[in-house]
């Protein structure tokens, strides 16, 4: 059981965290024909927009209510109304998703009330899909914005089922925000290979996978359509991925009675065994040969890689679900998660496979990684400065990844995704050893100092299993 520590600094240095409104906006990007709208000053949107554009290397739709100082003081009704009208008229999205920000939450704008008023005042918007989520910047983090937004989507967009009959082939999937478009595509293929028909809410795999679109459109391209969301109540199961999605899965169950199965992790051997077992059970089909082979390949990759990964001290900074997923997998490969830094509370924190989890920033990650002599750093692109100062290899996980290409295609789920991640990390470590840790005549000049640094046999982390 990990001790959860909350950073006590007045000044966050090199933030790990991003704000929850853009986590909410991100969720809307996984709907077809959507326009996310942040209710705040224009900077709130432009910073978020820039993050997404640099991460996905795509044009990304996102709008702002463009609150001025005066509007902020007077209340944002007019801005919300005008924004919705303008967007509805110009970009003609199928849905507008609205997230509040720090400015408008400080004032206390009643956006749900505004929307009611707007619908009354403009009959053409009476039943126009508008989903609002309260996501103040000064609370919680990116992941929270996503999970609240998906839960709200379920509550607002999913029809209550009219009959109790369920379609046995249909499965809802509620993916956490730590999954990439590549992950979503992989899961889609896996689920379809069992003869099931998945609906992903949201479906960033369809919208942000970096394909060339068929037309110029000012809203999202791809993603799940509203009619498909409406029908999710007729599915036989909901699969939720990441502890953050429990809220949305429960909302779905309450609203439609569709039972859910939560997979806290999909990186690693056993979590995917569980997924395969579950899919096999609900589909009544055996696990396809492809995945049997892939399991063998993963096991083999673990064996090949454990010589390199085993015993390494790692420093990982990520949002709770991603941190739990990746660090659990690496812990299971014998690595020591010596430093774990995250952004926000989660029921997972106490179950992290390490002694301590810190809700903190990248300065903490850097200082702890240095103090604990870590051999590898994993976090989002902003960790680049820290890793370079510490002269240790750096593996980018999570959002944003703005300084490398292909962020949308990174894979961590499934046997195959786990295999590729393990190879990538082992190869980083091998390269680092070759480049920076070749033995020299001086390596053992003071051998007993080095012996002290050997993995402590008293470490509570590496507990005997048999």
């Amino acid at each position, binding site marked *: 059981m990990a001790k959860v520590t909350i950073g006590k600094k007045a000044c966050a240095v090199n933030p790990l965290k991003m704000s929850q*409104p853009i986590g909410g906006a991100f969720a809307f990007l996984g709907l077809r024909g959507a326009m996310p709208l942040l209710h705040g000053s224009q900077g709130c949107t432009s*910073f978020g927009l820039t993050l997404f554009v640099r991460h996905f290397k795509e044009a990304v739709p996102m709008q702002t209510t463009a609150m001025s100082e005066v509007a902020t003081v007077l209340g944002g009704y007019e801005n919300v109304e005008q924004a919705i009208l303008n967007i509805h008229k110009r970009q003609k999205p199928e849905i507008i998703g609205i997230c509040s920000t720090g400015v408008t939450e400080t004032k206390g704008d009643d956006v749900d009330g505004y929307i009611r008023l707007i619908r009354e005042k403009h009959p053409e918007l009476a039943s126009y899909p508008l989903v609002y989520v309260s996501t103040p910047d000064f609370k919680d983090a990116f992941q929270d914005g996503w999970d609240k937004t998906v839960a709200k989507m379920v509550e607002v967009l999913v029809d209550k089922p009219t009959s109790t009959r369920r379609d046995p082939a249909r499965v809802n999937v509620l993916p956490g925000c730590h999954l990439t478009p590549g992950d979503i595509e992989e899961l889609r293929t896996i689920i379809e290979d069992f003869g099931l028909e998945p609906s992903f809410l949201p479906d960033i795999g369809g919208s942000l996978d970096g394909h060339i679109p068929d037309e110029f459109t000012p809203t999202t391209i791809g993603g799940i359509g509203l009619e498909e969301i409406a029908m999710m109540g007729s599915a036989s199961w909901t699969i939720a991925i990441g502890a953050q999605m429990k809220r949305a899965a429960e909302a779905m169950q309450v609203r439609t009675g569709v039972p859910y199965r939560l997979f806290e992790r999909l990186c690693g051997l056993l979590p995917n065994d569980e997924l395969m077992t579950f899919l096999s059970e609900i589909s009544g089909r055996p696990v396809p040969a492809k995945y049997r082979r892939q399991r063998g390949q993963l096991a083999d990759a673990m064996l090949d890689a454990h010589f390199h990964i085993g015993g390494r001290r790692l420093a990982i900074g990520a949002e709770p679900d991603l941190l739990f997923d990746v660090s659990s997998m690496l812990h299971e490969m014998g690595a020591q998660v010596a430093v774990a830094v995250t952004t926000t509370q989660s029921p997972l924190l106490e179950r992290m496979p390490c002694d301590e989890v810190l809700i903190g920033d990248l300065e903490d990650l850097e200082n702890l990684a240095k103090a604990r002599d870590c051999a590898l750093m994993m976090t989002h692109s902003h960790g680049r400065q820290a890793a370079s100062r510490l002269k240790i290899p750096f593996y980018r996980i999570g959002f944003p990844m703005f300084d490398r290409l292909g962020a949308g295609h990174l894979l961590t789920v499934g046997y195959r995704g786990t295999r590729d991640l393990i190879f990538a990390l082992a190869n980083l470590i091998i390269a680092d050893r070759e480049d920076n840790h070749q033995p020299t005549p001086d390596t053992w000049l003071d051998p007993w100092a080095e012996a002290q640094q050997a993995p402590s046999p008293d470490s509570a982390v590496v507990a005997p299993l048999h």
Partner: protein
Amino acid sequence: MSSLSATIQNVFNEPGCGKNANKSEAERKKGCTKQLQPGGAAGGCAFDGAKVALQPLADVAHLVHGPIACEGNSWDNRGAASSGSQLWRTGFTTDINETDVVFGGEKRLYKAIKEIIEKYDPPAVFVYQTCVPAMTGDDINAVCKAASAKFGKPCIPVNSPGFVGPKNLGNKLAGEALLDHVIGTVEPEVTTPYDLNIIGEYNLSGELWQVKPLFDELGIRISACISGDGRYKDVASSHRARAAMMVCSKAMINVARKMEERYGIPFFEGSFYGIQDSSDSLREIARLLVERGAPADLLDRTEAVIAREEAKAWAAIEPFKQRLTGKKVLLITGGVKSWSVVAALQEAGMELVGTSVKKSTKEDKERIKELMGQDAHMIDDMAPREMYKMLKDAKADIMLSGGKSQFVALKAAMPWLDINQERSHAFMGYIGMVKLVAEIDKAIYNPMWAQLRKRAPWETASNTWQAKAIAQANAEAAALAADPVAAEAARRAKKICHCKSVDLGTIEDAIKAHALNDVAGVRTHTNASGGCGACAGRVEDILARVSAPAELLQAAE
């Protein structure tokens, strides 16, 4: 009136601003805060603008007082280069929480400054105000004052919360912070007759270093660059420079003008984009320095350097001529770049088939006409689909623009080159212009485009998306051609003022109905040009076209 409001008002009064010159006293007071249109705005806020302008100051700590969004979503995202300290790339924020919102965040801010000084010991801490603490009333000036006194270290309040306006206002508020709290606070250890300030240059991709060797050769010393590769002490003592160059962006014109006012430092607006501009700027620098007492031989030495560098640049461009002659370039950028790079491209044999004038001044447009002829295709704002059609119709070989339009060009399988802020290439000075030509050559001749323009196996000639887009545009055009009423409606629906969302028809009607003949009149009657003022040029064009003939018409009747 709060001190922030006063500062903003102060900025609005900027006499150095070309746009302001077009306004009446009353209008000027209304300010140039772009009244943004909800649901139709893009671009950064004032905080963003202030941070962009000051962050390249490399050795200071930039502390953002606000919720995580302001710094967490945006830090370390600029391509400025520093030759030393990298502290500017460290993200500092108070990351205020609900408690701070309810009970105020001044204490947290004070502690944050203390932590930074203890851990990083920077020469100064810049504190950026953001919307939420501005609303809850955190007084960053007071905190900075107290902290400066307590820690014996300058703490500079930058009062530019996002909601006060757009990015360009933020640039100027950043300048005000420097003027109020930094510039002139330290006396330089040495001064020379060759001391120059450069204002509004951010050293993106290190491009200042493309020019600096020429300064070094001429003995010209950069007292301070505000703010690219800048150092606190240099900026603080920059009031003793002999002359200043204000880089054309106008982002910090208030700094240049007030330094002239306060310290008698003459300045000129110049640019190092383009060969001619580089030479002009060098000449102007030499002239100002000599006027301020530098030995007169600087002028000749400068001319010699200019002659040599120009010759080398043209020689380096020469071999590209054969390959680039007749290549058509579409230039979508702002301000001076819409014409300053044109000469070099033309010298390399290229033809400009269009240039954007969305952010251009009247003078910019004159220069364009001078370079490209009266038929120069000047482009206002355009939608992606229109841009695609335009690219095709103009048969352009490459588009040069900022990152914003890159995806349109790329998805249309058009060569594209970033000439705005996000670019990774440095294009300043003589060598920079050669580099630009070389990069254009590389982009145009990349064999990739031929492949990308080929159809996918499942597409027939008629179902490619490009074909569909063109067909749709053609169909719309045909429909309009067949229906003069609809065509006229479409023509009149064209948006002229984006801030206030005023269309062409409304303006034309107002001009005719009220016999208007200036922008102010149009503004009074339609609200057009009542926002950022950028459309004043367009309104003038309409006035020229509509009102004159109307008078002639009346005369003829």
